[in-house]
């Protein structure tokens, strides 16, 4: 590939690094774990690369490497998003601002020591 290509990739790299730093400047500690899990899922984009390797593979060793890479990357991306979603489902329950039937029942015991 020519020099222009690598330079534009480096440009993208540097700008993305700045964005990465800026975008999460303030995070409450409660969200540290879900955020880590979320970023973990996002680097699962490596699946795209693994697909390209397997999809253009020729010869057994290339196919094996590509195949294993796709399996591993799929684990990363699927597992990453599902785990994060599970963590955040819990957060949905504990956010009481929306007045729905469910959240009312969740809040009620706090006002008066709910029926046991």
């Amino acid at each position, binding site marked *: *590939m020519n020099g222009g290509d690598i330079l534009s990739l480096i440009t993208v790299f540097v700008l993305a690094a700045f964005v990465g730093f800026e975008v999460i400047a303030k995070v409450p500690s409660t969200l*540290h774990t879900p955020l880590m899990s*979320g970023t973990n899922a996002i680097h699962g984009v490596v699946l795209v690369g693994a697909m390209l390797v397997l999809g253009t593979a020729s010869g057994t060793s290339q196919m094996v490497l590509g195949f294993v890479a796709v399996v591993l*990357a799929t684990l990363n991306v699927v597992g990453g998003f599902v785990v994060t979603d599970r963590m955040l489902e819990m957060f949905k329950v504990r956010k009481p601002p929306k007045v729905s039937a469910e959240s009312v029942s969740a809040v009620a015991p706090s006002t008066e020591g709910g029926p046991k």
Partner: protein
Amino acid sequence: MSLGTGIRLADLIAAICFVLALRGLTGPKTARYGNLLGAGGMTLAIAITFATNGLTHFLLIVGAMAIGTVIAVPAARLVKMTAMPQMVAAFNGVGGGAAALIALATFLRAPAGSLAVYEVVEVLLGVVIGCVSFSGSCIAFAKLQEIMTGRPVTYPGQQVWNGIVGVAILGLGVTVCVSSFNWLVAIVLVLALAFGVAFVLPVGGADVPVLISLLNSFTGLAVAASGFVLHSVVLVVAGTLVGASGTLLTQMMSRAMGRSLPNILFSAFGSVITATGGAEGDTTRSVRSASAEDVAILLAYANKVIVVPGYGLAVAQAQHTIRELADLLESRGVQVIYAIHPVAGRMPGHMNVLLAEANVPYEQLKEMDEANPEFQSADVALVVGANDVVNPAAKNNPDSPIYGMPILAVDEARNIVFMKRSMRPGFAGIDNELLFDPKTTLLFGDAKDSLTKVVAAIKAL
């Protein structure tokens, strides 16, 4: 619009989704939406990849993806909330492994000597960072899963050996770049795997989650490197985003524990413990243990009870029982709040998740800064399965490995009740002076059993 342009546009949209996903994940209200947006961007990026020019082996690709999905979904769905940290470590490790394989495959594919130096550098970065992340995550997983000891593993000259391996990787890397000894890459790969293991071994106890966060950002960088190798913009963008934000997040996490990152990585946390704590502690001093009925009386006639939940509570799956106890106390007019240490459980925010699962009202959860002034006026501090986060050694004993870590001021409460399985020290492996304090009462046993007994005893009052 040509196919190529379409793919690049889709990559751009995916990249925007990832940035917005990260931003969404920083706020409690937008977090879920952020994660879904990330998943949406990911689906787009993956789907459009199928349209890449010259791509074949569709069946194999789909088959491999199916295998991955079939393993990942149940693993992620069924894992207990308490085991989340090691699950994240595992998913992170395989991502690093995939990045390393991509770089390796691309390198092997090119005819010897046909790659420019910068291309070899890209490959090496992908292989090395990916392998370190992979093997490091494996060890972190093993530590948290208790397949191996969670304590720091140290041996003489550890830092020197790590340094030598690091220098060897660097030296061999340079040799590969300037020569045509391509087989050296195999040695670099093995050394990088060894380095990942050696890097994680001395980190122990409560520090492992911070380490996972660091390995997470490593994987991000490995993915970015493989993006350079494949000239894929979306890989570079997403990998770099994770690399950068992950580094910042790692710093935030270590700050929440009152320690610096180098301190966590290189201090072999815990190696001092035997020197400071082991001599006294043990069975030589007496502790006051009590029955569930005693504890019930103490709690039922208090005005204000502060619950300090820890990992022991989570392990015993006692979230629901503690809520039952709290409800019962409140019906008797006792004020109950929960004091949540930033690293209660095994990771920052972990305990909030567990308590939310048990429908503990949000308003009763107090973060450390909010909770600490409350202890002075509390009649009872009920410590359930927590230890290190209430250890006054962090305040008083400069020799202690946890010195400087912010702790919950449990020692200021009028009475302290510890529910513990045994006198065994906590996650960090340090004795807790507080257990020997005259105002401390211990109730031994599994947290859930103990709580159930206390609930029954209060009902019988």
